[in-house]
């Protein structure tokens, strides 16, 4: 009964997809209007940390967002945005820099102008770097020191992919970045083929006409490039204080992310479907008290990183939890049968579909597809999950687990386990 229902329920139509992608003067514009009370416009720029010319430049550029441009000063932007009641934000991932404006419907001429004037005519003033940007960069670095999970995933990327995807999201604490470095990085990144304009709650033609004029001023092709990713693997141990003891056990692969690994991540995921219940994840059943395992699955355009983030109060507890998690992973990688596989696929489909429900998720999932010119809908993702078979899953999962693992220990490195002690 349950299996019949689960298999027959295919997602017919995803209403929140971007309708069409219009190529306006070399810039890709996509908009979706679901009659939300607020609207948002995001400039998604391929200027993530994997493209940076000097370590930390992308982080600096993110914090330079919405500072002085030829049209208005940093203070002017703050005051005018408050008068309109909108919110401006910038976020950085390994591949993209997103500049977002959220505002009430009808205010799009002003907010699109703020975004385009930053992209076309930002000043990157020296005093703004010293007075606003550098302190913000520094405080974000300081904040990350108290988040061992973040540190572990950052270190895992460096070990797994070396350059490119391996470069850190944050600048190093003792960097030599100047406003000139950030300016030249921005100039090579802000090009028409490197930007996707994504709108929610806004009409496509309105957005296109607003963007078209102003973005014709910037150069047509970007000068940024990143070598294709390759996976290495290895081990690193970082001494840290204050946070929980943390271990990250990961397996990466170069090439397009495969739906089988997404299904494996969904199967092992320790987040229960009903709050405060234990869930049926094979990891949760054998975990020692006070320890937690989080399944991390990070797909990128040409690589993916799958891993288990194990946290606990002491090194020995983390060792026990790590052993249990690795055991569960190995069992699952031998293949899933019947209901187990169906459960994994449906959970993965729900995770993919519900991510698109939120504004941030919509941008992070579909934005990169718009930018690369692929079909900008979720249908292909869901269809690829539908096609996963028992054989394909077993093959993909077992070959993933056979690769050289990434192992990162953050915390009290004297008591935290080594990779061979976890049964790998």
């Amino acid at each position, binding site marked *: 009964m349950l299996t019949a229902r689960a298999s027959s329920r295919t997602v017919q139509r995803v209403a929140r997809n971007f309708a069409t992608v219009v190529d306006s003067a070399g810039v890709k514009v996509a908009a979706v209007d679901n009659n939300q009370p607020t609207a948002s416009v995001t400039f998604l720029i391929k200027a993530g940390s994997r493209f940076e010319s000097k370590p930390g430049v992308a982080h600096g550029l993110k914090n330079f967002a919405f500072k002085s441009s030829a049209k208005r000063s940093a203070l002017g932007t703050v005051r005018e945005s408050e008068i309109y009641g909108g919110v401006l934000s910038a976020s950085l991932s390994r591949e993209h820099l997103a500049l977002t404006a959220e505002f009430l419907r009808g205010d799009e001429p002003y907010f699109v102008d703020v975004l385009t004037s930053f992209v076309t005519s930002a*000043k990157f*003033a*020296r*005093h703004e770097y*010293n007075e606003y940007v550098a302190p913000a960069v520094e405080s974000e670095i300081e904040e990350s020191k108290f988040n061992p999970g973040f540190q572990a995933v950052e270190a895992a990327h460096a070990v797994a992919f070396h350059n490119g995807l391996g470069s850190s999201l944050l600048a190093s604490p003792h960097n030599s970045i100047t406003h000139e470095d950030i300016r030249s990085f921005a100039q090579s990144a802000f090009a028409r083929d490197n930007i996707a304009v994504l709108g929610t709650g806004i009409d496509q033609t309105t957005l296109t006409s607003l963007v078209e004029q102003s973005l014709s001023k910037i150069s047509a092709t970007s000068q940024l490039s990143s070598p294709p990713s390759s996976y290495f693997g290895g081990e690193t141990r970082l001494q840290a204080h204050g946070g929980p003891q943390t271990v990250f056990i990961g397996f990466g692969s170069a090439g397009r992310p495969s739906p089988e690994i997404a299904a494996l991540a969904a199967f092992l995921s320790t987040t229960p479907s009903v709050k405060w219940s234990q869930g049926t994840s094979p990891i949760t059943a054998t975990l020692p008290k006070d320890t937690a395992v989080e399944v991390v699955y990070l797909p990128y355009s040409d690589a993916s990183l799958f891993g288990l983030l194990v946290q606990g109060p002491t090194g020995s507890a983390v060792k026990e939890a790590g052993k249990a998690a690795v055991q569960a992973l190995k069992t699952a990688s031998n293949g899933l049968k019947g209901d187990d596989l169906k459960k994994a696929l449906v959970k993965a489909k729900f995770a993919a579909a519900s991510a698109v429900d939120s504004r941030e998720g919509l941008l992070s999932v579909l934005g990169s597809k718009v930018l690369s010119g692929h079909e900008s809908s979720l249908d292909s993702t869901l269809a690829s999950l539908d096609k996963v078979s028992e054989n394909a899953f077993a093959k993909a999962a077992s070959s993933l687990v056979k690769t050289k693992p990434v192992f990162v220990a953050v915390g009290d490195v004297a008591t935290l386990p080594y990779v061979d002690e976890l049964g790998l």
Partner: protein
Amino acid sequence: MPLGFTLAPKVLASKTLTSWITPVAHWYANLAGYRRYGLKYDDLVIEEYEDVQKALNRLTPREQYDRAFRMKRASHASVLHNVLPKEEWTKPEEVSNPLSPADQM
């Protein structure tokens, strides 16, 4: 950095007005005497204001050094009750306003 009411932008916008007024301006600046002590106009701005302090903080180390040097040289000349030798006078073409927002980019 205009500290008060100024017609300068309007004058600079008109070619004719600029060509008339520039010689008068240079005559006036030479008459004021600070150029003979090797100073720039911005060195005369009173420092004890918040905005001026902020502008001073934004100078590059090189500009800060040059400013201190000009001040020191001028006060030394003042102690000697004499102006600087003519080759050290501020020349009209090297006039810049280090404290103006445009120069701080």
